[in-house]
């Protein structure tokens, strides 16, 4: 595994369920941060269903990860595509190659290395659905990682599963030197896994019997695991409150404190922006979803971001909060 040479903050947007708006949120987060002055690279890691370029209005990406995998001599710089937005570069998951979700672990590692060596302020990863390692490994390399959910019960369930899978994958990597312990937290293969350790407390209880010295590693992994939550397509207060319930559930069973970044309301403007292939933060920065995104960006970057569009131009107001740690 390559070492991290980039000082960039990696923001992965994931979620257990497909179709909950991960790509749209990723694009607008990246656009907002780019407009705020950060050098942002938006990376499409949904290899099986790469469509992020469409949301940016890029018809045919000249090069993507699939070309990077299959063709030798493709330089990493060639993957960085212009988006037409200052400070924002884009890396396509597919390019001209249709691509496949079933990429090898080597390819995953190539991508991870590529990401870790990107020179940017912020790297936004748009992840695919599911809880497989190809997804979770990207999520676990991020900080902060954002889990996205919609208010529907099914999405909440999958989000919890995604968080737990990510956490246990992180713990599993802590136990890399002990395969027996890894089974306790490897839920990717139910036939081999110890399905009784499905919560952190049960895991620690089991570890206390088998390897008490590993409890500290578990606690460390739990402490370092700090996902954030965004509820997308909220329609009312009850929907917004779903995020609180999910955070409560995660805290109860995984002892993980999830940060509630915010919510994005359901709006036809989002759909319109997809149809027009213009991020809604650019199309109408004063719309409600745009305001929600700006609030989320403000929470992520510890700045007060405010975008105003007038006469076709976007005016940015950014005030850095004290002690934010972000370079304005």
């Amino acid at each position, binding site marked *: 595994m390559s070492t991290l040479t980039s000082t960039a903050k990696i923001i992965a947007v994931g979620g257990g369920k497909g179709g909950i708006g991960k790509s749209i949120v990723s694009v607008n987060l990246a656009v907002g941060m780019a407009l705020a002055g950060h050098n942002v690279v938006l990376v499409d890691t949904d290899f099986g269903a790469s469509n992020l370029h469409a949301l940016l209005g890029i018809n045919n990406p000249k090069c993507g990860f699939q070309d990077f995998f299959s063709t030798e001599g493709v330089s990493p710089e060639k993957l960085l595509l212009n988006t037409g937005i200052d400070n924002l570069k884009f890396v396509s998951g597919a390019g001209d190659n249709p691509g496949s979700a079933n990429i090898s672990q080597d390819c995953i590692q190539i991508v991870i290395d590529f990401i870790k060596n990107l020179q940017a302020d912020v790297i936004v990863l748009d992840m695919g659905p599911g809880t497989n390692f190809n997804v979770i490994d990207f999520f676990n390399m991020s900080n902060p990682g954002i889990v996205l959910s919609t208010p529907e*019960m099914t999405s*909440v*369930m999958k989000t*919890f*599963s995604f968080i737990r899978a990510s956490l246990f994958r992180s713990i599993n990597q802590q136990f890399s030197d002990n395969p027996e312990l890894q089974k306790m937290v490897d839920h990717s293969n139910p036939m081999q896994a110890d*399905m*009784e350790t*499905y919560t952190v407390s*049960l895991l620690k209880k089991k570890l206390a019997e088998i390897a008490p010295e590993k409890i500290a590693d578990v606690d460390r992994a739990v402490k370092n695991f700090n996902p954030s939550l965004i509820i997308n397509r909220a329609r009312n207060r009850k929907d917004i*409150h*779903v995020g*609180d*319930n*999910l955070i*409560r*559930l995660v805290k109860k069973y995984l002892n993980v404190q999830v940060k509630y970044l915010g919510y994005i309301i359901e709006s036809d403007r989002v759909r319109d922006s997809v149809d027009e292939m213009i991020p809604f933060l650019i199309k109408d920065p004063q719309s409600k979803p745009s305001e929600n995104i700006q609030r989320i960006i403000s929470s992520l970057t510890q700045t007060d971001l405010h975008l105003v569009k007038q006469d076709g131009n976007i005016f940015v107001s950014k005030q850095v909060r004290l002690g934010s740690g972000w370079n304005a």
Partner: protein
Amino acid sequence: MSENQSIQAIQEIILEGVESVWLALNNLLGLDHDQSYSIIKPYLDLALDNPLYMASAALLIFGFPYAMYKIRKINLEAEQRYDKIINRMNPDDSFDSEEELKSGHHFDDDEDDTERPLFPGSKTDYTDDEDSAMDVFNELEESDEEDSMDDLQHIADSMETEDSARQETSEASMDHILKMTKTSDKNTEGEGQTNSEEEELDPILKSLLDASQDDDTLSHFSEPSSESDDLDDLQDQAILDLQAEMEDSINTLQNQINQNGTEKNYSRIEETDESDLDSADATRNEANPELESILNEKFDWDNPFPETDEDDLEELDDPDSTAQAEEIRKLQKEMEDSINEITGHIAAPLDYKSISLPEASLDEPDEELVASPEITDRELEEIAEEIYHTGVSPKPEVRTEKLPDNYSLEEELTLPEDLAEFKQTARQDVSAQQKPETTVSLPSDSNLEDEMTLADFASLASQEVEEEEPEAEILSTEPIHQEENNIDSLEQVFEADADAEAEPEPEPEPVSKITGAVFSSEETPQESLTTEEPAISEPVLKTVVDQTVSRKVDRLVDRLTQFQERIDTIKNLDPGTQKALNTTNFLQGLNYQKAELKSQNVKPALSDKEYIDLLESFIFLEDQNKK
């Protein structure tokens, strides 16, 4: 002496002053002042010698301009005061739109409905006018015009008189039209009185307002007052409007009848003057005693206010003077046919438009039905099948207004006001039909008695109305709305069923075409009649009863009849079809499989704890949940 000297000195001073002024004027104007002054000087001397002349001259010089100024000032003040009064009165009494009239907000704010008389012409209605007039009077009183009070009281009295005269006029005209008698003394008296009072009213108002105001403002003053008189009670006003419309139509019709008999100028048909009515009555009585006897015999109804059928008017307006006698006979015949059709509809309701059909067709409705080119072979087959199934001769289609393709019964059901109006009108019809005494002969094939009075018709109609009222009430409620939807759905399903079944039942026509209820074998004739109330009343629409209701009500009656008959059509389907429509076997016969659902209950809103518990149950396995 000293006084004379002083007077002379004053005179000299005045003369010198006048002379100097005169010289100055001559200098300015370039006149030969010596000669002109010498001409005037003797008169000036004369005036100065005689104090009386001098005083009169001074009065003429100074008093006349002052008088003119003073008069003009008073006039301006009066104008301003009047404008103020008018501005205060106009917002209250002016109505910009008919909706405002119908809304009645203008009156509901300040008045007590219980104190409001039924008709706006009564005394109570004029209290406001009196108040407004009193306001005007108070304003005028400030200008010390005491005569205004008397004039105003006179106006109020004249308004009351006019009101009573108007009410009397309407009653008299109603009686006149209903009874179709020779004279309408009350009517003419009332109308004449009204006209005379109106003629008197304007001079009174003028005399009142001329004292302090211009003539132009008089009309402004009188118009809101008279307008408010007529618009005081909106509901009653609508009735009065309807009555006036009916009266106009009746007058036109009567003039037309008169015209047919006396070769009068047709242009007078449009005139609604009561004098014409009287002359028309008299002429009609002279020229056509037979018609008068028929009218007196058959149409002695209580409240047959007509809404003149335009078709009838067009027919009457045909200026064929050579066939006048024929037209009169046609009119008589038409009326007779209408009465005959009433009886015909009791046994077998006919198309009310068939009033113009040959008489033979009325005598033999079944033959007419067979011979009618509008009845197709398929319809005949259906009739035969219905005879076979029910044992009762089905009635022919009543070709009323055809429903549009996109016609929705929901639209019908969302007309509570119309239904209420229909109910009210139906009650009026019943009350109007309680007095007739004329006997009408029934066709030989009638199931009823050979002779039946119109009172019997009224009683039948009242029974029908009594039976319809609950339904009308139900129609405005949701259950019937649902029933309506069910009917629609059932109709659709039934159409599919008719195509699918190997042994087709008597195929129902599209409900919009079927306007008559299918007679069942259990129904008594009386019960059958109860479903035909509009069919009975519709022929009368052409002649007598039609004049009691407006076209809107008639339309509603037609639509309600169609709706009721659609319901009856569904209800009267043969039991097999009904059973098939009401059971799931029908759908199963169409290869539908019943889905087994164990839980169809709607989940209530969950609390946070319940939500988390539910989420836990979904996330974790059963054994995990237990732990």
